């Protein structure tokens, strides 16, 4: 446990910074998210600024990562392998996008919005975890 203390504290700090960014950016507001996706209606471009700002800073961080032998508190970098684009990626992302548009929440903002004490984020997060478990049961069964 104590061996992981630096990792736990940095995860807490990064989560808090991430959540603060979400709150400041307007991403916690499903109406804003749906306004961004409402191309045919009164389009609200603000989420493009959120994504642009995030990708730009992350890209700068990657420049630093390439110069580092290892992370500060871990043995190595856990980056996903470059696999080809497949049907599961496209179909899964489409199902996610459908849910994102219908509810106006994606995983990060839904979790952060739990702090507001409203029913909707709690129902969303509960069902989201259920959806993850359902997926894993279905595909583990198929594989086994």
């Amino acid at each position: 446990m104590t061996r992981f203390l630096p990792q736990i504290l940095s995860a807490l700090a990064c989560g808090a910074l991430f959540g603060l960014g979400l709150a400041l950016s307007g991403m916690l507001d499903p109406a804003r998210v749906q306004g961004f996706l409402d191309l045919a209606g009164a389009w609200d471009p603000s989420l493009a600024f959120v994504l642009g700002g995030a990708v730009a800073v992350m890209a700068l961080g990657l420049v630093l990562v390439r110069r580092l032998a290892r992370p500060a508190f871990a043995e190595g970098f856990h980056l996903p392998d470059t696999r080809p684009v497949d049907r599961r990626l496209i179909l899964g992302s489409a199902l996610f996008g459908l849910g994102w548009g219908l509810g106006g929440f994606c995983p990060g903002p839904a979790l952060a919005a739990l702090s507001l004490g409203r029913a909707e984020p709690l129902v969303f997060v509960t069902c989201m975890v259920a959806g993850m478990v359902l997926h894993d049961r279905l595909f583990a069964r198929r594989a086994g």
Partner: protein
Amino acid sequence: MTAYLPALLGGMLIGLAAALLLVLNGRVAGISGIVGRLAEGSNVAVNAAFVAGLLLGPVLYRGLAGGWPAVTITAPLPLIAAAGLLVGFGTRMGSGCTSGHGVVGLARLSPRSFAAVASFLVAGVLAVALLRSSGL
């Protein structure tokens, strides 16, 4: 332009948090992945700490800005529940969401993430068009 300043600054904080998580812990800030690993019971303390931090974010915002961020939810609870199921199932199948594919994947110029982002944006636009045409 100033109307988009909070969005830009908020986005930059999100990018900074994601970059720091990689530099410090060597982990990709993919929220669906973190929640999925937490649900599986893998690396619980670290993943739970990140989620606890996420929940702390709006509280910090309240301390700095003097009020909770605006949240307008018009969807009825059954629709919220269906949306949550789709988001959970879909992010697991597609190995990521707006953070893992959208922020980290695009910054890494990953072809898989570009394909995923295109797919979820198109589906999201269709979902909102569907909502609007049904009067919601």
